[in-house]
């Protein structure tokens, strides 16, 4: 992927970067010349506002206004009906800066890294044709569940923010190939992330992860995984806190695992609802279920014969043992059945 702007047709690309511009007047251009311009570079100037004359470049597809002093993107940008890529890095933009109906523009690539976004603007979460969204180096405190609407998204760059939680709705982004969450405050990865079938690269370095969900093993296309700078456990933690199950849970487990027959009129609705919440124990040899009470179990899995990663899954009880080991408390355990073959996960950056 070449990053330098296309030089194929000089007339279609207008370079006006590093000219100390605080405004721009394109009145001297003929109409035909204005219609020729497809790319406009206005980086490293002194613009406080998007110049109005930009909006007469009716065929503009690519606009780069990075490294200026923009606080707002005015409504008149919506006149650029052919605009597909907007790059406005290193400005002073925040969640109130964009037009209220920006989603009507059908922009495909939006790079707003290095601004002052405290949250993802509501309009962005309606951009169903958006393919690439970069909000690195902002002040985002969370990822809203509405992110699931961005079903065309292939690249999501959220590195360098204040994010502590990844909503499971991220799993809806089935076109996602590159997910960057490095340099945040993330403590856990939702297991639903294994539904990101298209994911090729996952960047998680410099967070607060102590283990990963076992489900990460099913990301079959994943080639790059960065995990450095996380407090990943290296030794099996023997003291796992375990809250014993309640009487209601024990009764529910017995009903489900013994397949005791009952009909919905036998029980009050709250208990019917409860019994439907039973989760199967992930241990394939165990037919057990659990409701609220389970134990977190960490196994170290060999990746490509090189790295041992702590992967976590829930078991229904501390007595529920893995099919592979005789002693689930063993320190030296690795799970050959589930070790990742060497041709997958080619580049796991642990340290």
């Amino acid at each position, binding site marked *: *992927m070449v990053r330098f702007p296309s030089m194929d047709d000089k007339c279609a690309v207008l370079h006006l970067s590093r000219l100390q511009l605080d405004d721009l007047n394109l009145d001297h251009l003929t109409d035909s010349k204005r219609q020729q311009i497809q790319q406009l570079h206005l980086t490293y100037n002194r613009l406080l506002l998007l110049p109005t004359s930009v909006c007469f470049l009716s065929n503009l597809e690519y606009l780069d206004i990075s490294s200026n002093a923009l606080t707002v993107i005015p409504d008149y940008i919506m006149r650029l009906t052919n605009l597909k890529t907007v790059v406005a890095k290193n400005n002073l933009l925040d969640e109130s800066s964009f037009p209220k109906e920006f989603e009507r523009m059908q922009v495909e690539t939006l790079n707003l890294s*290095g601004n002052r976004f405290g949250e993802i603007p509501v309009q962005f979460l309606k951009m169903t044709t958006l393919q690439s969204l970069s909000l690195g180096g902002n002040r985002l405190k969370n990822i809203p569940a509405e992110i699931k609407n961005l079903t065309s998204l292939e690249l999501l760059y959220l590195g360098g923010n204040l994010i502590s939680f990844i909503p499971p709705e991220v799993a809806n982004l089935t076109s996602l190939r590159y997910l960057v969450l490095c340099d945040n405050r993330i403590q856990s990865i939702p297991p639903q992330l294994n539904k990101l079938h298209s994911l090729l*690269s996952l960047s998680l370095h410099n967070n607060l992860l102590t283990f990963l969900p076992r489900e990460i093993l099913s990301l079959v296309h994943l080639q790059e995984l960065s995990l450095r700078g996380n407090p990943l456990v290296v030794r099996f933690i023997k003291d796992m806190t375990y809250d014993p199950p309640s009487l209601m849970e024990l009764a529910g487990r017995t009903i489900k695992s013994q397949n005791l027959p009952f009909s919905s009129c036998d029980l009050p609705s709250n208990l019917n609802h409860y019994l439907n919440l039973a989760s199967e124990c992930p241990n394939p040899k165990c037919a057990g279920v659990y409701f609220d009470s389970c134990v977190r179990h960490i196994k170290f899995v060999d990746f490509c014969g090189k790295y041992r990663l702590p992967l976590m899954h829930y078991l229904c009880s501390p007595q529920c043992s893995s099919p592979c080991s005789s002693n689930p408390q063993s320190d030296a355990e690795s799970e050959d059945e589930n070790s990742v073959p060497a041709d997958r996960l*080619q580049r796991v950056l642990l340290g």
Partner: protein
Amino acid sequence: MEQTELVKPDTLEDLIQTLHKLFESDSVNVEEVQSIMESYDSKPHEWMKYATFDQYRYTRNLVDEGNGKFNLMILCWGEGHGSSIHDHTDSHCFLKLLQGQLKETLFDWPDHKLQAGMLQKSQQVLLENQCAYINDSLGLHRVENVSHTETAVSLHLYSPPFQTCRTFDQRTGHHNSVKMTFWSKFGERTPYRSTASQVPVL
């Protein structure tokens, strides 16, 4: 030792020719090489043809083979891209920034008896046109583009050339040998089909 008349290299081609002269003999004057590399003022139009970025990881692009005495290459780092902790297989390593910035974190060799993690020794941010130097006796390092908004481009010289190095797991000090691959050579893309145990890395 020969005295070389050294003029500040104006162009990348000048720099390459000067480096050929400096590496003619078998001994390397580290300060001289570092100074010459630093004195070349980076001009993007001179190295653009070698600078191809990959979305997911940094690329290594061979520029010159130094008559077998050294490898000169350009590395392109996207936002957030970084390397493993690695050694330099008994070779000299010079690293000059052509565009953007890179963070270099230095580590001591891990003590295998202790089986402990590796603590960083020091860190520095390399600015445009600066040139850093490292070899195995000085320790190990990790190089990263920590910017979320800017890409980085660096010029690396390794003498003698090497094709494998060791990468280290910071948590345990364990290391693996890896084969190093090129994204392109002399401006031409050179795809690498990796086999089972080989992981492309710096």
